């Protein structure tokens, strides 16, 4: 399946792009992260510490063990600092 993967804040800076389309068979977010980490050192660096990251699936906060079935947009970012 094709998913849009979005990166924000220092995740975006570390990976070097704000979004990309990815063809994946990953069943969960964790599986997708494993695929990304295997790609290049900049992905490895961005995903080195998952406790420092948050994930949203189709624009709703989710957990890294969430299934990716039917998900069209995955976003990775650091803990939010609004307000």
């Amino acid at each position, binding site marked *: 399946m094709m998913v849009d993967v979005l990166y*924000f*804040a220092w995740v975006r800076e570390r990976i070097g792009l704000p979004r990309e389309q990815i063809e994946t068979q990953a069943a969960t977010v964790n599986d997708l992260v494993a695929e990304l980490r295997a790609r290049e050192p900049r992905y490895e660096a961005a995903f080195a510490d998952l406790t420092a990251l948050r994930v949203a699936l189709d624009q709703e*906060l989710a957990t890294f063990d969430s299934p990716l079935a039917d998900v069209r947009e995955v*976003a990775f970012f*650091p*803990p*939010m*600092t*609004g*307000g």
Partner: protein
Amino acid sequence: MKVSVQPEPFDLGAELAGFGAGRSDVGAVVSFTGVVRDDSGAMEALELEHYPGMTQRAIAQIVDQAVTRWDLADVIVIHRHGRLGIGEQIMMVATAARHRAAAFEAAEFLMDYLKSRAPFWKKEHGRDGTSWVVAKDEDEDALKRW
């Protein structure tokens, strides 16, 4: 109810004028305004990045929670993004309710959730370079009281 995510400044006085007006059941109005602070003395600007597709909806969900939990006559949330100078207003929240306890609690609830659950990220631009603001454990802990 009003939720706005915008790069433009807002006029706090104009937003509050008439807020909760024309209702005989509003006894208390609380507002919070967040302002760009310079703790280091070397900051030049604060940049707010956000997640356009998600932000408006995430804030609306937080407002829905507040309205479910407290008897609120009206709510305003305005949150800016983009590059802001020292002293500029970042965001505002306002609540109108019958009694002061509900207005205060709902405003604090909204602030605690906007801080940690609305998809904004702050980057400080200073004379010595840039750095992302790191979320504080105490901000995450603040959610536990609700």
